[in-house]
């Protein structure tokens, strides 16, 4: 059971649409029995770091009133995602030695970095303009487009 959880194809092969809506109340419950500190370093640890970064980023985005803080949160979210890509892509971390080049995760991470740079540039430009107009970067003041 443990192997199958650690296998890189957990999502690709394990999820299928079944006729029964609720086969189990919470199918991922066995994961709760997993203790990272007693396990050798594997994909799951990278995922934990990524999840922490992701969550920190989201919380930062949700709670920061400063637009720059929000941008930072976004960077955290993106990089949390990047760690996951890198982790799933590493041949060392993949147990079955699938015949791939092994660079697809890194490539996507590079794309994400690229996108993050572009996004940061645009977002900073927006923020700067907002500041020019409103003399502040408090995003709670930015409700001109509310419905």
């Amino acid at each position: 059971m443990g192997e199958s959880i650690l296998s890189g194809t957990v999502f690709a092969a394990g999820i299928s649409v079944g006729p029964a809506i609720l086969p189990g109340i919470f199918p991922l419950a066995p994961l709760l029995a997993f203790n990272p500190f007693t396990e050798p370093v594997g994909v799951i640890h990278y995922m934990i770091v990524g999840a922490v970064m992701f969550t920190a980023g989201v919380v930062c985005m949700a709670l920061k009133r400063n637009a720059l803080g929000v941008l930072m949160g976004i960077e955290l979210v993106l990089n949390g995602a990047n760690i996951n890509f890198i982790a799933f892509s590493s041949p060392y971390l993949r147990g079955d030695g699938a015949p791939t080049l092994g660079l697809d995760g890194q490539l996507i991470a590079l794309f994400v970095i690229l996108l993050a740079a572009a996004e940061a540039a645009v977002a900073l430009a927006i923020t700067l303009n907002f500041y020019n107009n409103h003399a502040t970067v408090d995003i709670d003041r930015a409700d001109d487009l509310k419905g």
Partner: protein
Amino acid sequence: MELPSVLPTLLGLAWLVPLASFVAILFAGPRMGHHGRGAARVATAAIVTSLVLSLAAMVGWLSQHPVRNAVHGGHAAAHGSADGGHGSDAHSSSDHVASGHDGGSHAADHDAGHAASPVAYSGDWYTLYEGGRLKLSIGWYIDALTVLMFVMITFIATCIHIYASDYMHDELHDVEDHEVHLAGGGHFHRPGRYPRFFQALSLFCFSMLGIVIAGNLAMVFIFWELVGICSWFLIGFYYERKSASNAANKAFIVNRIGDFGMLIGLMALWGALGTLNFADTTDRAGDSQPGLFSLVRPTVTEHAQWVPDGMVKFAAADRIAVIVRKHAGDPRAAVDEVEEQLDTWRGEGLGRWLLLVAGLGIFCGCVGKSAQFPLFVWLPDAMEGPTPVSALVHSATMVAAGVYLVGRFYPVLTPDALLVIAYVGAITLFISATIALVANDIKRVLAYSTVSQLGYMMLALGVGGWLAGLFHLVTHAFFKSLLFLCSGSVIHACHTNDMRKMGGLRRVMPWTAGTMLVGCLAIIGAGVPFVIGTSGYYSKDSILAQALLFSRTNPAHWILFYAVAGGAMLTAFYMFRLWFMTFAGEPRDHHVHEHAHESPPAMVYPLVALAVLAVIAGWTLPGGFSIANMIEQARPAGTGAEEAGGLLFNSFTIPAEHESHEGSVHVVATWTAFLTAAAGVFLAALMYVWKVISPSMVAAVFSPLTAFLVNRWYFDELYAFLFVKPILAVSRLASDTDKGVIDKIIDGIAWGARQVAGIDSWIDRNLIDGLVNATAATTWSAGLELRKLQTGHLRQYIMFIVLGTVALFVLASMLFRSTLAG
């Protein structure tokens, strides 16, 4: 001069010129001169042109066919050796049509002996319809009678146009009609209608001449209806007056009744004989097609009447069907056998009834148009029209058209039809003469007198007096139009029609009085027996003589002669009653008398001209010319001979007309006419001049009779009871049905449709619109609610995204079966 081609041209032009005048006045009338005064000149010029052309035609005719004194020489001459040339004489009107241009040689032929067929030219101007052997056309049939009628009509019409140009001068400016009673009690004002009057008069002249020149019965019928509509226009000239519009409608409707019979006659002829032409015609192939006259009186019978082949075949249709069935495969043999049997069938009398029906049908039209019993009621009411109209349309020409048509159609009328005509004429003349005795309206006396004289003509035609009837038609036209114009002159002067307000007018209106006296003398047939007399003397004598001859030949029908003789006395009485009440004695109403004056010259000249003709129209000129002799030229072939009848009545004989000129008949007739007329005048003088007998006392003594006569024999009431009221009741019933039932049904249907539409509309408004509106409202409110989510708080949006993502994950993990689970 090529008479056969010149005559149709001359008379055709004379016929069409009034039409041109009508069209001109119709389109430009009110712009002709001041208030349309020029319309009278245009119309008069047109009719004078017609008169000149007609006179030219007459001169042309007389130059080719001189009228000899062969017929009425000395008023008692024998008829000439009339019956000699029947069979051998191949001269018939068809020759004229076929060869066309050699009238001269035939004329010589004609004058050499008494030809069987009269000289007549016929032909077509225009073909209305042609299909197979059936053909309807606008054509001419010109004989001496046509020419004479043209001259008479145009002459009288000319006099009346001149007269009317002055008589109608009130119409030149705005008219205040005192006889129209407005609801508010005010006076009725209207613009003058001077051009309109002459426009109708011109149209009438055109139509009347059309009847006379017509070459076939269909054309006669067309113009017959045209004069009817002209009469309607003219009677209803003062159409704002209720009485005038009623009278016009009455005249028109009563005439339609007669015309219905005429249509039956036309259909009988057209259906059985396939032609309505009077004379023979040539078809396209060049073959001669017999006309009505030669069908009914063919050469093979020496122009004696027989039932034409077409009518025999028509009546023997079932026998022909048997023969056709017998020779089923051989139509030629069937035709031959039918032809073989034809004479046998004719001998059995097949088709006689059809011929009688045809004759009586045509006569029905004449009953309506010539105001004969029982359709005479319209003519007295027609006096609502202006007096010149009464003189032209309702005494001299249009009402005489019926007599003319009977005369023209004479060869086709069977003896039985003639006897019916005679009795109708006798009843008419007696009834209307008695009503005239008590009438006080000067025009109504003349109207009843006209009806009575038309009865005379019909009676004369019916008893075999073809010449007598038509001769009286011509003379009557002159003196009756004279009398009407005189009465118009009196009315013009007195502004009233009531003779009881007149009297003593001879001092202020000598010309009118004198000419009217001439007219009265002419109508009663005054003259020195066997020497000389007014025109009426000649024509009335010949009618009396023929009636006497008929009554002698057929003693069972004695009453016809007494009707004529009694009618002569009544005529004399009421005419002189009229003259005495109007002109003699002392004025009864001084107000009227003081304002009376002699009429202007334009009205007096026509009176004088007509008076002269009323006197001389019966005379024979030294060369032998007389109107009677000229009419005699047109006598239809074979009608001069004796004829026996007996289909409807017990057998009787219609005597030959020339026998009435024999002394034994003629002398008695002349004295009867003279004495009855003298007695009538004497009685009138006793009552109205010498006042020996008081008219009021006579009226009182015979009061039931007087009331009966004053109420015109209750004919109007009778017709109202018999026809008008039932028709009104039926139409009221129909109207009630219409309103009560049919309208209700239609309303019900409409109501139902409305209800269905209401339901439909409800569904549309509530369900369909509701659905649409509900969708819109839901969308709207959903939009309103969702709008609240758009707070503009970026952090909140992030929370939504996070929560949404988490929710999606939870949902996905619940909905999708994972391999983890199993």
